[in-house]
């Protein structure tokens, strides 16, 4: 039952309409009170936090080795189906970029290439 409530609230959150979300929470609290199930509320909040964390982990995310590569990286990521507004600089990539979203990864970084070469040479 907690899963059902969580899914309903999750769907509401997707609307990105704050008023609608507030209304949904108010209705849920009224419903839980009338059903005598207020004890479920903390559990529902916990589940929602988990969902939010999962969404955060799987959100579109683009990293570049240098700021100057940002525009090209965002364009290439978008062509690969990963649409992000900004890219984050990650010097450990050495060169190139990588992007991930919803369990999909595109890695065009020099770090990956060097690691692959290292593994080929040492194995």
């Amino acid at each position, binding site marked *: 039952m907690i899963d059902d409530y969580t899914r309903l609230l999750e769907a509401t959150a997707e609307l990105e309409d704050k008023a609608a979300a507030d209304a949904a929470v108010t209705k849920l609290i009224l419903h839980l009170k009338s059903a005598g199930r207020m004890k479920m509320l903390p559990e529902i909040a916990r589940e929602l936090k*988990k969902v939010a*964390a*999962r969404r955060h*982990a*799987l959100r579109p995310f683009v990293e570049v080795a240098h700021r100057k590569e940002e525009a090209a990286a965002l364009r290439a990521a978008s062509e*690969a*189906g*990963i649409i992000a507004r900004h890219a984050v600089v990650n010097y*450990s990539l*050495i060169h*190139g970029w990588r992007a*991930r979203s*919803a*369990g*999909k*990864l*595109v*890695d*065009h970084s020099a*770090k990956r*290439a*060097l*690691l*692959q*070469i*290292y*593994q*080929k*040479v040492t194995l």
Partner: protein
Amino acid sequence: MQSIIERIEKEIAAWAPEVGAEETGIVRATSDGIAEIDGLSAAAMSEMVFFDPTFDRTLVEALKDPNPIYGLVLNLEEDGVRAVILGDSTKIHEGMLVRRLGRPLSIPVGESLVGRVVNALGEPVDGKGPTGAKEVRPIEREAYGVIDRASVNVPLHTGVKAVDAMIPIGRGQRELIIGDRGTGKTSIAIDTIINQKSEPAATRPVCIYVAIGQKESKTAKLAAELDARGAMEYTIIVSAPASAPAALQFLAPFAGATIGEYFMEQGKDALVVYDDLSKQAVAYRQMSLLLRRPPGREAYPGDIFYLHSRLLERAAKLSEERGGGSLTALPIIETQEGDVSAYIPTNVISITDGQIYLEANLFNKGQRPAINVGISVSRVGSAAQTKAMKKVAGKIKLELAQFRELEAFMQFSSDLDVETKKRIDAGRRMTEILNQGRGAPLPFEMEASVIFAATNGYLDSVAPEEVSAVEIKLREYLAREAGGVLTAIRESKEIREESEKALREKLDAFIARTASVA
């Protein structure tokens, strides 16, 4: 140095960025060897994944420990997957990247594994370097169907008189060895492996000993013993010690079966010993509970029967069209206080083609092996027995059962008639003849000759308590004086008229000599 530089330069020149996306997941949580992973929505059941320790580190840090840690997907859920970690779970952390391998869990197999000790993933653990096995096979596969199989009719000699005479095992059979701890279960299995040394190289089965949840010291001792007896030449040890993650203990028997199947499909014979499946069941229970699968009887998951049935069904004798190879399985089950009606023992008893039941009481009385003849059985029966053994051992089981009845009666009556006393003495003599110490398997022709002597009255004049000593002398005598007869029995696999005549002459001479010495 120059060659390394050249190779690196060649790799750099040939390198091109990989185009396209790959499916990955992120570790949401990890505990007790289980990782909860977000993403990997297309991952398949039993698929291998690897946790990439290099993804969120700098290149310098990544190169210090670039080896991935493998995992096995065992739960497919709405928002992600749960995977068991097949390595050091302390290296797995929240937010770690997980990549798919796109193939089910597989291990390397091949001839080069023979003589080696490997773990459940087929990686060498004996410090002798890489195994060199090139072919890779999935550890889970469907067993051969009816059409591909032939009936089990070729014996697999254990070298243990009591087993070969009364509970014969055939190549391709599944014979359970069951009993309390310390009753000699492993000894029978190890003697069977050692005894294969006496088989001609062409028909000698490759032996695979799977140690599950055992002390590493015990496995090391066993490997040393097999090595000292020359049995490692045709043996592979798969070790998943007590210190290994539960997932590896659960996988080890499947790895053993996969290696055995490789040899079977080459048209060879293979023997796999699972020591023991009780510990595998416990490891699987632990994993299932951690994966939050609903517990059933004794907290085992609902598919515990299928776990063992799908493993043991892989033992087979293949048809001639399939090459005629075989995989014999000797699973071992440890009982508690002799309770064979517990959950796991009854499951495995119902799956296998018979069981050798070892009893603590008999063991404590000094009977070796401590086989309870009454409830031990081989469902393949005499189809997997040589003519020689059939001829000499036909009535032993019945006679021993009658002796057990009389033995019980003997405790209540001191005045026994001559006939009953004679039968009891005969039973005691037969029990003594079947007594056999650990690590002393006998070639089949010697077993047949000794049992022939016992069942044909040659030892009737020997007091039951002296039978063991006389038997040792008899074996020495036969090896020394009756080499021709033994060779004839070994080659023809039967006791023909002329062999029987010659054997009787030798036995008469031995008895006469023994009597004169006495």
